[in-house]
């Protein structure tokens, strides 16, 4: 099982309280993880990736294993620790105060 951690607003939207556990068929990549996440929680469609371009929304980042994976190709394999479920895949909202 793949573990995904969402920012608070998306947890509320998806009615989940902590980590999301997903079954993802190989290869485990950003794209396959997000495909599975959106299929399981359709209310998240468009909130992490643009509906049309499928690009990551600009104020979100993807972290795992203490690395920033935001700019990795979406079809690149995620670290083995993520695909084995040892480490979570983190969707992080930009820290932006002011409004």
């Amino acid at each position, binding site marked *: 099982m793949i573990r995904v951690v969402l920012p608070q*607003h998306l947890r509320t939207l998806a009615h989940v309280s902590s980590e999301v556990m997903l079954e993802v068929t190989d290869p485990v990549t950003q794209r396959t993880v997000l495909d599975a996440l959106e*299929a399981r929680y359709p209310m998240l*469609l468009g909130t992490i990736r643009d509906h049309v371009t499928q690009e990551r*929304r600009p104020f979100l980042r993807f972290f795992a294993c203490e690395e920033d994976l935001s700019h990795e190709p979406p079809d690149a394999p995620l670290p083995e620790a993520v695909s084995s479920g040892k480490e979570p895949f983190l969707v992080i909202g930009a820290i932006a105060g002011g409004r």
Partner: protein
Amino acid sequence: MSQVRVLVGTRKGAFILTSDGKREKWEVNGPLFTGWEIYHLKGSPVDPNRIYASQTSGWFGQLIQRSNDGGKTWETPGGDIKPGPDAFQKPASNKFVYDASDSTGKPMTTHQFYDGKPHPWEFKRVWHLEPSLTDPDTVYAGVEDAAIFKSTDGAKTWHELAGLRGHGTGPQWQPGAGGMCLHTIILDPSDPKRVYVAISAAGAFRTDDGGVTWKPINKGLYSQYIPNPTAEVGHCVHHVAMNPKRPGVLFMQKHWDVMRSDDAGEQWREISGNLPTDFGFVIDVHAHEPETIYVVPIKSDGEHFVPDAKLRVYRSKTGGNEWEPLTKGLPQSNCYVNVLRDAMAVDQLDSCGVYFGTTGGQVYASNDAGDSWNAIVHDLPAVLSVEVQTLQ
């Protein structure tokens, strides 16, 4: 006993304010969708328990929320959690994609950016939701960058009425300070194929064939801030209002000038009269007196707060030109709030109620057509929109 439900969209969530027909004591529920910008909420005229809400965020984009029980519970249409073997089927959800096909309307073009250069259309958010007058599952959405979308399945899926963007003047449209937004949608109860929209900063437009073809309706508007002040498009229309009992008579608050049209927008004339300033955002019409209209003058261009630090609603009982300030119960010193374009509404009770919200977080109500006012709430986040449902 009648009830009134006031739907308030703010910078940080939505609130629902309810009262009986006396409109003296209020119950405040919220915040809903905490932390999200709620640009607009509106209930279906056919099924008041069906309410649509535009939920948006710079981080997470646009969502549409829908309630089937008067705002007690909400769902994202088409967003049901899908466990089990169907989990990997890609569902359609609240997705706004401009129609770029050759067959319906025109291929995607560009509009003008602030500097006058061509700029591609980019979807940002839904400013206004207008439920159908006859079908609770049909709803229109006015979006930024300006376009109109329609859903006929309760907001699960949306398609653009591309004839608006494609009718020819689109490349001349440009954003106002708040973005290039389609903020006003008015459905004509006497003609189901007639719809009015307004865009900042393009102007007003009308369709007479259910949204297939559109035309600009801006004759009579004069805007000194564009190269040709009487151009067909380019006017920064802030809001348009119509009393549904008298379709075809429209009232407009433009960037500067308050205007009216008595022929469905074919020709406009100025009715600013004795207003202290003819700049403002909101405008609305009394529910039972179609010549009684309301505006809140705002000081511009730089300030965007009320003149003389006094919050005054101005009412005309003569269809414009002659205006009286309404001040009873409103702050008359040290007030520096704005009232945004979708933040005024009227109820349908015999003594017409008038409601508006401010950027200071107050929602004011009058149960006597504006003669006196009370703050229902004082300290909400900045109010973006106010709508009212009159419930029997």
